[in-house]
């Protein structure tokens, strides 16, 4: 199915926003202004956007410690996200969550998560709600989380209850600092998911169109009442596990190679301009617009309100 010009521009804008957000964070972290641990999503944009472009506010996603991309793709406010990462009182979570805990239930984003593998059972619970509403629940998960027992429990429960849950395994080839060839004992994550009794496919996670088309099919399959599905996306992580990771586990020239040959934004641009669906100038305009947005996000975050000690104990309970 051919996407409209507006849909193509939106997909590109979302991917570009994630890339620019993450590249900028990589630079800003060096200044020391941002506290805590940050895990960047750059390189994997086609996965988040290829999935989330199908979703509405009552379709749910759960994310990971590497969650900025999923948050942006699902519609979290980019400026409020940046304020959150800067720790501002005006951040999306009032500066109490930070990079690893950004959530916005109103847009169906049930949270980034600092515990690897914790999201899968939560996605299954959201699948209970999704089933009653005719929507879907997406569990974004990495190749590290795929080895957690919680993921196995969740996959089995989703099959048993025939829930509309899609397990999206983004295989960026590294579980923190260890290669997938070592840590994943199965032939593939998709093969393992299939063994749980669900439809499972593998796809190139660098090509937006491949992700988008695969997901359209899986979402229709789940909404038809067939139970859960899984997709393993082959992708790349441009930065380290966390910011500051010296990445000594990488091969010689690996980062240069994946940035040159495995870049979802470059591939998207080539594809749509060669097919004359969009002009280079259209995409350049999006680049400029996104650049200005991120510039504004950083400027506003630097100036945003800070918390005071009395804010520490608010919102622990609704009432107590």
């Amino acid at each position, binding site marked *: 199915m051919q996407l409209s010009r507006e849909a193509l521009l939106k997909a590109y804008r979302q991917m570009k926003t994630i890339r620019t957000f993450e590249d900028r964070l990589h630079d800003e972290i060096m200044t020391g202004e941002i506290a805590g641990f940050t895990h960047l999503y750059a390189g994997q944009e086609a996965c988040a956007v290829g999935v989330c472009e199908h979703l509405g506010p009552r379709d749910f996603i759960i994310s990971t410690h590497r969650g900025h991309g999923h948050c942006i793709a699902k519609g979290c406010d980019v400026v409020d996200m940046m304020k959150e990462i800067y720790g501002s009182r005006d951040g999306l979570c009032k500066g109490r969550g930070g990079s690893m805990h950004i*959530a916005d239930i109103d847009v169906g984003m049930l949270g980034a998560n600092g515990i690897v593998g914790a999201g899968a059972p939560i996605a299954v619970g959201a699948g209970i*709600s999704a089933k009653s509403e005719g929507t879907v629940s997406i569990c974004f998960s990495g190749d590290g989380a795929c080895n957690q027992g919680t993921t196995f429990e969740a996959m089995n429960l989703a099959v048993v209850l025939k829930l509309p849950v899609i397990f999206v395994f983004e295989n960026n080839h590294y579980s923190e600092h260890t290669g997938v060839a070592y840590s994943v004992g199965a032939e593939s994550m998709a093969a393992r998911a299939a063994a749980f009794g669900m439809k499972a496919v593998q796809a190139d996670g660098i090509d937006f169109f491949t992700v988008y088309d695969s997901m359209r099919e899986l979402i229709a399959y789940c909404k038809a009442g067939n139970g859960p599905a899984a997709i393993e996306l082959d992708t790349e992580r441009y930065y380290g596990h966390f910011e500051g990771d010296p990445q000594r586990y990488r091969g010689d020239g690996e980062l240069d190679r994946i940035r040159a040959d495995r870049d979802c934004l470059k591939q998207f641009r080539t594809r749509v301009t060669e097919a004359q669906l969009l002009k280079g100038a259209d995409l350049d305009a999006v680049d400029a617009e996104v650049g200005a947005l991120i510039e504004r996000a950083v400027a506003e975050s630097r100036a945003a309100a800070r918390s005071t000690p009395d804010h520490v104990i608010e919102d622990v309970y*609704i009432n107590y």
Partner: protein
Amino acid sequence: MAIRMIRDVIRDTIDDEMARDASVIMLGEDIVGGNGAPGGPEAIGGIWGTSGGLWAKYGPDRVIDTPISESAIVGAAAGAALTGKRVIAEIMFADFIGVCMDQLWNQIAKFRYMFGGKTICPVTIRMPYGGGYNAAAQHSQTIHAFVTAMPGLKVVMPSTAADTKGLLTAAIRDDDPVIFLEHKALYADKGEVPDGEYVLPFGHARQVTQGDDITLLATGMMVKFAEAAAHQLAQDGIGCDLIDLRTTSPLDEEAILDSVERTGRLLIVDEAPPRCSLATDLSALAAAKAFASLRAPIAMVTAPHSPVPFSRELEAAYLPSTDKIAAAAAKLMSYRRG
């Protein structure tokens, strides 16, 4: 008022709340039972008899039998609660909390705070707990100490049939996550239960007996033992102000401190081992806030710092009892500043 067994009160209260609010769902292991088996669904109705008939009445989308997957149960409860359901989850034995601790501690307890106060997480996790069944070290424990220590969770420990109704109703309707601890040895206890809607707000202790000599604090099955001890002590002329805390989080500090200020003596009964426990927490509270009123050192009757043993004689020696409470009270009364 009707006389009801506690296990039936639990079942009926869930039934009432599911009838009242279509967003209430329930999930757990064998809460239906018999699925996929020759005996068919409803062969069990919960191993504690606390969910019989609910599957037939509300259907498999609301009364959800799960595999033995505690992390998935609590995680699914979290996900359903974040997206609009009001969830009752059952963990068959509180001891199994270790399997699902991450979902409880890092997820459910923290969502509201971590996400900037913009979400609710209405989950009631029912956990049968406690000793007295010779069920040995992994099926007899208390867990209230560490769930009470977790910010973001509320913790309920009813001891009577009426309180079970009022507090379980409040738990299900609460927008915060609640750990609802049911003592296994109380399931068959009977008591009067108010008819119709009955909701007890959290953080309000129950005065069980009144007396001017000793403040006795207890929860769950310990209330029953302490009440028997209080009656025994009354015959010796020792008046016990027995307070059933009902909820350990929130805690009714006012009721505790008012009583200690009046009696000057505090005896805490706790089924848990003695270190970093509810008993030590309550004694720190009294020492910090009622120090001037104390006429004797704070006393505690607790389990020893050991796992729960199996054999009848060992478990009896392990658990606090009416006799141990009465003996500790008598000793407390005989204290003289040296």
